[in-house]
């Protein structure tokens, strides 16, 4: 509305086409301190819809009436404003009942990045109707989830699958006394790169004469098979550099017959930390401010 290139277009709120539920999970101390979250699954129990309402709706769509169920992570910022992040969204038939599972790993990943003391994990579940028109009005209300404290069984559940990093993680720096064997647990090993001994660096790289680059060596314990269902194409856990630092250098540059020195920074040159990680696993998104 503040752009001069566009005229303001006002909209009118006609009717609510969605029903929304807010789920609150107190997660503090539910995730062990030295653990890695593998997957978080939200399970919602869908109660059966009234048959008469279903028959009326079925006549409208040959494919069968469906609604869209969307899971969002709700974050209350320090200034009191709300921000939502889309976690999962899918079409669900209005027929049938039983458990529905949603992958909410990303929401828990976001929650873990919050400053302490952390607010509870807030998941907003909204059910929107897919078909337009007055005949489909109220379709979203046919998909109802069992509520917490409801008499019937099936209150919302949050399943957290974690790995204990004391067994499945890396061990920090390698023991310089012990050699690296196949059985060595993933660790960071000192490796010195001598730039003075490299022919191409002669008279060109002025600083540093060499540097400790470090490398990640050793193997990682593989988790039980039932935990690898999350990502079907994911490889085994490997010992990789999870944090790196830049390396500044001073080099000599020749310009127009004159030689001068210049500083350049090479990214990801020094390994700061090694970790065990699944090859091909999705990288968790960093929480935006």
């Amino acid at each position, binding site marked *: 509305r503040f752009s001069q290139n566009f005229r303001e277009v006002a909209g009118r709120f006609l009717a609510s086409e969605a029903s929304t539920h807010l789920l609150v999970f107190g997660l503090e101390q539910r995730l062990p301190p030295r653990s890695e979250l593998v997957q978080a699954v939200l399970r919602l129990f869908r109660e059966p819809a009234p048959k008469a309402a279903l028959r009326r709706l079925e006549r409208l769509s040959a494919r069968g009436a469906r609604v869209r169920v969307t899971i969002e992570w709700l974050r209350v910022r320090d200034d009191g404003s709300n921000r939502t992040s889309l976690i999962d969204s899918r079409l669900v038939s209005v027929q049938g009942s039983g458990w529905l599972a949603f992958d909410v790993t990303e929401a828990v990943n976001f929650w873990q990045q919050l400053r302490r003391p952390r607010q509870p994990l807030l998941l907003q579940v909204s059910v929107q109707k897919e078909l337009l028109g007055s005949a489909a009005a109220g379709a979203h209300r046919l998909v109802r989830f069992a509520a917490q404290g409801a008499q019937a069984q099936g209150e919302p559940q949050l399943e957290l699958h974690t790995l204990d990093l004391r067994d499945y993680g890396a061990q920090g720096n390698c023991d310089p006394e012990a050699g690296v064997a196949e059985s060595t647990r993933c660790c960071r090993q000192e490796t010195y790169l001598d730039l003075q001994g490299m022919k191409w*660096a002669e*008279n060109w790289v002025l600083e540093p004469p060499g540097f400790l680059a470090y490398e990640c060596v050793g193997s990682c314990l593989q988790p039980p098979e039932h935990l690898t269902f999350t990502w079907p194409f994911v490889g085994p856990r490997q010992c990789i550099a999870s944090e790196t*630092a830049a*390396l500044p250098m001073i080099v000599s*540059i020749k310009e127009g017959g004159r030689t001068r020195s210049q*500083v*350049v*920074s090479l990214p990801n*040159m020094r390994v700061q930390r090694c970790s065990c990680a699944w090859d091909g696993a999705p*990288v968790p998104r960093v929480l935006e401010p």
Partner: protein
Amino acid sequence: LTEDQVLGNLLQQLGLRQAPVLDKAEVQGLSIPAHVRAEYVALLQRSHGDRSRGK
């Protein structure tokens, strides 16, 4: 990290295709100015604090 990777990274940062060949005589009289050294030290200190998260 291999020698080739260091060289490749350096060439990329400087926008060069190959490593320049400099005579010893060309750099012998070259002293690193104070402001260049100060920039280098500042970057060195910062690189200990700033860590980039990889995979």
